[in-house]
């Protein structure tokens, strides 16, 4: 079957845990974590890359202590990050109170011991393409302000862009948010094209996103234009291309 998993950067990232080609990617993700921690006034920010089955493949964190905290939910198999990934929506715990202990009986005391008082987990996803979670840890209780919340989502989007585009493009264009190639182009036509490419290539949706973006890059065209051509059936991605 023309699954071409070997050609998928994303597949490579998820399978080659922290070694070889994924190494540079971790550096970039770590920078995102460090920036996010500073901007959001957090004691730490971590990113976990996960496969659809919930397998934990790669992690980056703003600092070593946060990396250990980020690891805790996989040790216990529970936590806001795991829930955010499963439900495809953020989990915002501004206080690790009784409700948190009831929900995550092992995780909650463990992160509290590490000095964490609030956890905010943001899924890294575009529709059904789920890539992982970005976690923001704070050493004091209290909600993120609306502005902080907006910024946290922007950091999550940045992490998604890094994961989809790989290290070459991510390092060339650090912000990744110019209108020409925004991973979060919210035009319906882009999402529809993702679904079509998935079937054309016979690959999972996350890989379809990677391939569609790679195609737009290689053609030097805006993602939305390429998407419109795909939906209008003026372009068809072949299983052997890209």
């Amino acid at each position: 079957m023309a699954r071409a998993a070997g050609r998928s950067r994303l597949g490579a990232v998820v399978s080659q845990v922290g070694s070889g080609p994924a190494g540079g990617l971790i550096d970039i993700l770590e920078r995102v974590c460090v920036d996010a921690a500073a901007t959001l006034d957090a004691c730490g920010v971590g990113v976990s890359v996960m496969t659809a089955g919930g397998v934990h493949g790669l992690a980056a964190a703003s600092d070593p202590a946060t990396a250990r905290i980020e690891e805790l939910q996989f040790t216990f198999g529970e936590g806001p990050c795991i829930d955010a990934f499963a439900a495809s929506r953020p989990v915002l715990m501004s206080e690790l109170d009784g409700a948190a202990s009831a929900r995550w009986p092992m995780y909650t005391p463990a992160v509290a011991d590490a000095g964490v008082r609030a956890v905010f987990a943001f899924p890294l996803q575009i529709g059904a393409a789920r890539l992982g979670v970005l976690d923001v840890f704070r050493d004091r209780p209290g909600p993120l302000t609306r502005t902080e919340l907006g910024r946290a989502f922007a950091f999550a989007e940045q992490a998604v862009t890094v994961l989809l585009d790989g290290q070459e493009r991510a390092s060339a264009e650090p912000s990744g948010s110019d209108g020409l190639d925004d991973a979060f182009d919210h035009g319906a036509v882009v999402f529809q094209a993702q679904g079509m490419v998935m079937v054309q290539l016979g690959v999972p949706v996350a890989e379809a996103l990677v391939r569609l973006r790679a195609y737009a890059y290689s053609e030097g065209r805006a993602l939305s234009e390429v998407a419109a051509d795909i939906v209008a059936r003026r372009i068809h991605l072949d299983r052997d291309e890209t």
Partner: protein
Amino acid sequence: MSTVSTERIAKIFVEVAGTLVDEFDLIEFLQMLVNRAAGLVDGATVGLLLADAQGRLRFVAASDEATRLVEMLQTQGTDGPCLDAYRTGEPVVNADLSTAAQHWPRFAPVAAAVGFRSIHAFPLRLRKQVIGAMGIFGREAGDLDEADAQVVQALADVAAIGLLQERAISRSEALTEQLQGALNSRIIIEQAKGVIAQAHNLTVDVAFDVMRSYARRSNRRLSDIARVVVTDLNSLPGFASGKP
């Protein structure tokens, strides 16, 4: 809309209340709401946009999913009556189309191309916050009177309250969680349209109808079906035979 029938309104609010107590799906709820609002204003198309955490207005539901209508709704991330209603918290009733091109350089030409001659937008208000907007677009010229506008605004307010309903939400953070979840569900629906269109050689518009009728026949939620279409199409037996 001439004067709205009291009977129709009563029916809608009863149905809305019924949805809120049943097992609740936000996308499904908003879909029902735009359909009912469209029935209220004869021949109108109704669309609903919600603001994401970064304050961008995003399309979530429409009474007609034709691609060009969805596109028209999407332009309002940049300008348009829904964006105005969202920003000001006030309804835009009987928009003046003679000056629309100046006010809304992106929205106006798209709306004109579709053939809309009456345009209104209502904010979705929740406590002191505006969380989105509902647009009403008619192909016939015609004004909403004061009473009509109040009824439609009441529906928009109900939509906003519906957002809080899923788990007796008291935390404002839970609203964010739910909103973001709904916006992502909407993306999955678009991805699923693409999957079906490609797999069965259909247009994306027809693909949506196929998916919706499948959801109805199997008594499952549209957003659930859409997720399975994108992640595991083969597990939906007989999907190909679904005709709109």
